[in-house]
């Protein structure tokens, strides 16, 4: 066996191991979580909002809704900001500015989530409490922090999508008398739309999966929020908060929470892949 073949095989094995870890994780969480879903029934598990695991109530309805609301809030904040930023960086600014700004934005992605959470607790939460009311730890705080956290994802994928639009489109549009903004709005953005949608969906995946920062700023109360100033508990927070102690049915319920999360994220990623492939 020559050296090239050998290296090839080793690399192949390593590649397999990363895929097999995905398979193992999938099998594991389903094996641990499914018995509980069977026990309580899928409908009760997903739609009931009564969560008292040590007393035998396993309803994660409020958390599913909270997770979706927090994600929606993050989108409302993060997508316009991120998209605007991407358009400026890809279309309007000089090469020098871009070289400075893009790495700076990518640094955002490198900040650990606990730091975002800490900043949220120290700065954002008192701000909300003092000026808007409520306990501060809230749906709003979690949405703002997540909105900032998804910026790097949204921006960098959107920039890639925008720069992939061939220059002839822009030249043609300008030649027909359109202004630069008209060109961006009517030609470049539609041409890059599938890439931008992918960016949004991946940003959503990032938001719905984020745990640490959300635990720190969301307040983690188990009921359905009636305003953005009320505390919420997301699916990820629920797992992370309680797994350390859980045993028996309670533990299974947390794995079942993981299944729901897994399915949501799979659907998001799959639709991102499909949309990206449509082009």
């Amino acid at each position, binding site marked *: 066996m020559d050296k090239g073949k050998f290296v090839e095989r080793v690399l192949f094995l390593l590649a397999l191991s990363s895929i097999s870890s995905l398979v193992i994780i999938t099998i594991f969480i389903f094996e641990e979580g499914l018995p509980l879903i069977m026990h309580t029934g899928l409908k009760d598990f997903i739609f009931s*909002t009564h*969560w*008292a*695991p*040590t*007393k035998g109530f396993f309803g994660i309805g*409020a958390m599913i809704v909270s997770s979706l609301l927090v994600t929606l809030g993050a989108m409302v904040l993060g997508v316009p900001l991120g998209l605007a930023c991407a358009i400026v960086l890809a279309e309007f600014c000089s090469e020098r500015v871009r070289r400075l700004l893009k790495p700076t934005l990518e640094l955002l992605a490198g900040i650990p989530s606990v730091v975002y959470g800490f900043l949220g*607790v120290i700065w954002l*939460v*008192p701000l909300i*409490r003092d000026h808007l009311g*409520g*306990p*501060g*730890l809230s749906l709003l705080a979690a949405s703002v922090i997540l909105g900032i956290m998804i910026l790097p994802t949204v921006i960098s994928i959107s920039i890639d999508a925008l720069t992939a639009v061939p220059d002839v489109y822009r030249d043609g549009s300008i030649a027909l008398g359109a202004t630069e903004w008209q060109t961006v709005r009517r030609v470049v953005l539609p041409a890059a739309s599938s890439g931008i949608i992918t960016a949004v969906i991946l940003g959503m995946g990032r938001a719905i999966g984020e745990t640490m920062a959300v*635990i720190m700023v969301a*307040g*983690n*109360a*188990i*009921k359905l929020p009636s305003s953005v100033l009320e*505390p919420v*508990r997301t699916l990820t927070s629920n797992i992370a*908060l*309680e797994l*350390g*102690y*859980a*045993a028996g049915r*309670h533990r299974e319920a947390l794995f079942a929470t993981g299944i729901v999360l897994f399915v949501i994220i799979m659907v998001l990623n799959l639709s991102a892949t499909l949309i990206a492939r449509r082009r």
Partner: protein
Amino acid sequence: MGFSRRSGRLLRWGSLLLLLLGFLPGLGGCKGGDQAGSHSLCIAGSTSVQPFAEKLSEVYMQQHPGMRIDVQGGGSSAGIFAAQQGAANLGASSRELVAAEKKLHEIAIAWDGIAVVVHPSNPLNNLSLEQLRQLFQGKITDWRDLGLAPHTIDLITREEGSGTREAFEHMVMGKTEFTPSALVQDSNGAVREIVAGDPYSLGYISAGLVDERVKAVAIDRVLPTRENIKKQSYKLVRRFLLVSRVPPAGECKAFVDFILSPPGQQLLEAEGLVGVK
């Protein structure tokens, strides 16, 4: 030539494999547990006991060079489980053992009160046990109901499974459930941090961790002072336990003896707990 190359490669991969295998047991809990060298101990469990256990082991290690004590968190139930499994020499618990766990050997090391805390600017001084129960049942939601200026109460509880929560549930809530509207935080420190910052909040933490940034409220006119906890005239008192699968022996016994000795107990008192001796 070919043979030596192959055996060299075998050696390299073999040692890598060994290295990986060597890491595996280290992944969960303390390394080695029971069978670890006689000069190291592992304590795992309650996050309420953890800071005190850390302090004790720090002093003990200074007095006994060469001795290593690992203190880990994870929660009372996790600590008891680790002790049952032998993954830790001693499990730390801030709640009483339930029937199924009674086989373990338990050593009470200190009394701790659970203090109900509010922001220092809050004029509230006293709550009855009944009022406290109604607060956490969600029947009292406004400070007006307690005779103060109207404002929603930001109620803070601990996460399901926490020893402090279980003790509080046992002593205050009885069979009733916590209101789902309460904020949930995952440590005494996090609860204290919120109460220190939010003038309208109310939470409960280990009395040993009350500092000047928060104010402890009297329960049925009794403040959670050291004397009141020792006399047990304060209602919300629990024991801090160390549990082990077998009665402590050797290094483990020496450490337990140190905790129960006057210097050890004084150390706990200095940190805000109330000694058992």
